[in-house]
């Protein structure tokens, strides 16, 4: 490459200086590209720091972590999709190992949820996406206390360009009137515990009945790791924790959703 030969006009610079600015721009472009970590690789030290921040009694400790996350070029998306779920997993693991009491775990998860909400304020496919884009109903069954997973999922779906209606612990009447008033392209139910299977089965039944059998339902959540008969037990169309599979089970491939994603 011959850097000195680039002698053309550069925006807001000209002549020989232009070559240097352009060279610098090229260098900076490489720096930026290099330091963005590939999707899914977490920096252990940051996971530990985040875990410590949400476990400490002092919520300001997350504020001090923020600039560091920015410096490490951890995007809000990365934080929401990877760091927060990982920290939540570690909190659960800490209870299993009796390094944390359930009260500490609850506090920690609730802080994670606050962080998630803070960084996800702008994630709404509704206003920016295509008006005819898919709409989904996401339900957290009554009595289900693990809501973080559903929140993370809602954020991801919204970023994919789907308009998500999240309903927490809706009763049958509420659900029926919601389904009568709005049209959804599908429903997702998140469950974490065995004892919510029956509630979930009733939800599936209600959704099918209220939508005249038109709506498909996919079940996901932590329970899937322990139970492989969820489809039979709940009557859902599919059970998966994979967004692609869930969307295709609902007849909405991710490709279609991604196409609707605002640039």
């Amino acid at each position: 490459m011959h850097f000195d030969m680039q002698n053309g006009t550069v925006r807001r610079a000209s002549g020989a200086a232009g070559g240097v600015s352009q060279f610098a721009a090229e260098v900076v472009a490489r720096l930026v590209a290099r330091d963005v970590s590939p999707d899914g690789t977490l920096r252990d030290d940051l996971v530990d720091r985040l875990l410590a921040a949400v476990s400490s009694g002092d919520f300001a400790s997350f504020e001090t972590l923020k600039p560091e996350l920015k410096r490490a070029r951890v995007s809000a998306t990365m934080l929401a999709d990877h760091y927060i779920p990982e920290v939540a997993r570690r909190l659960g693991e800490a209870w299993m190992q009796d390094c944390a009491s359930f009260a500490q775990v609850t506090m920690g998860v609730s802080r994670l949820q606050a962080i998630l909400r803070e960084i996800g304020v702008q994630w709404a496919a509704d206003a920016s996406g295509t008006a005819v884009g898919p709409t989904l109903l996401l339900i957290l069954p009554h009595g289900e206390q693990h809501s973080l997973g559903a929140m993370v999922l809602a954020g991801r779906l919204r970023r994919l360009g789907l308009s998500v209606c999240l309903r927490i612990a809706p009763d049958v009447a509420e659900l029926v009137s919601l389904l009568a008033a709005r049209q959804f392209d599908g429903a997702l139910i998140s469950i974490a515990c065995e004892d919510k299977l029956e509630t979930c089965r009733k939800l599936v039944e209600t959704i099918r009945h209220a939508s005249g059998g038109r709506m498909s339902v996919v079940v996901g959540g932590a329970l899937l790791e322990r139970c492989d008969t969820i489809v039979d037990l709940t009557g859902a169309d599919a059970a998966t924790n994979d967004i692609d599979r869930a969307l295709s089970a609902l007849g909405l491939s991710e490709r279609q959703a991604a196409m609707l994603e605002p640039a």
Partner: protein
Amino acid sequence: MTTDGRHLLNGGKLPLIAPDLLGDILAAAADICLLVSPTRRIISVLVNPHHRSFGQLTDWEGSNLKDVLTEESLRKLNSRLDDLRTSSTRGKGPLSLELNHADQQRWEFPVRYTLHRIGGDESILMLGRDLRPIAEVQQQLVAAQLALERDYETQREMDTRYRVLMEVSRDPVVIVSMSSGRISDLNPAAAQLLGGQRVDLVGAAIAQEFEGRRRGEFLESMSNLAVAESSAPIELTARRSQKRVLVTPTVFRAAGERLLMCQLDAADSAANSTDELAENLSRLYHEGVDGIVFADAEGMIRAANEAFLNLTDSANMAAIRGRSLTDFLARGAVDLRVLLDNVKRTGQLRMYATRLTTDFMGQIAVEISATWLNDRPNPILVLVVRDASRAESLRRPTFGQPDDGVRNVMELVGSSTLKDIVAETTDVIEKMCIETALELTRNNRVAAAEMLSLSRQSLYVKLRKYGLINKSDD
């Protein structure tokens, strides 16, 4: 140290306790106490008589531990008991863990147990501390959290509706805080009428947006007008766009804040009865990517669109209205003469390549097409100005686009310290230069070192540092 009771007993610090008393003592010391056989069968349950009832637990005697624990607690207990069996307990305190009891799915309660091996066999004494008080607080917290999330979802819905309403509404609306006199929100229609960008206008002092108005005076007249019945709107001149605007104020309160909603109308709205083409042209003018400038026969700017303001880094319309085009053309009067001579002769001029001078003394390559509107007493020169710097850089495929460069720098600044950026930049430059030198010398390291004025040794150090050396080369 050990807290093993036998040790204490043997040491004579505690007297031997008669077996018939031991049960009472254990029951009183813990909230709940389980004696478990090696087969995990519950031999006996002792409940502290002074403690809040757990319900009927005597049924538990004789049943298996797995029938009284939740799924995940059972998994946890099993793995911890395995640990207990395999690892030596000597020198360690008793095993302590939190478990959730469930009685045939009827109710659940958490207990913090310490596990003690008693006797020679695998029998275990579990001394439990009732965690229900904490669990109750936790449940309230979870319930509060879920209620909060539900509220946020409702708010999200309302928020979206509000934003869409503001976004698409054609009636210009500005909402002003009465206490600060600053704009809290406005819709794009209002921003266009005022002659600025929405982001710049939010937070701006409303009085400053109109000619000849001071803050106190403005707000006072607005609130007077708002309470007066059936009065005509105030006519004002917007500072940025220089448009005459009719302002109709409404005062309302929202959550303890007094707000002023101003509905704006262009004063010359009679002349505003537009057909579709006029409306489309006006949208193109306001939203198009190319700069559009109207000037008189002398080249004095009469109006320019947002895109032109952006190209020239001008703050607002007021800053360029009445200025000569020569201020913005790199070759000044020469450029203007060429433009005017050509359009006066032929009516139009296309693809005139020149540079624009920006307000910060920068330059930007542009292509200009000019049209002469001669159907009136005072003819108008119309310029469509297209940023050509992007096209220029596209012709040089090796380099990133300058616009990207600017964006990249913006991404770096603020995310790293200057020192870090410079250090990292130096590394990249070093690596690129070394790669280039190797390329030019066809991988002759001696020649490359010479070209870079480096000793061979320092070149090798750098080659290694940047991973430019193959293992086989070493």
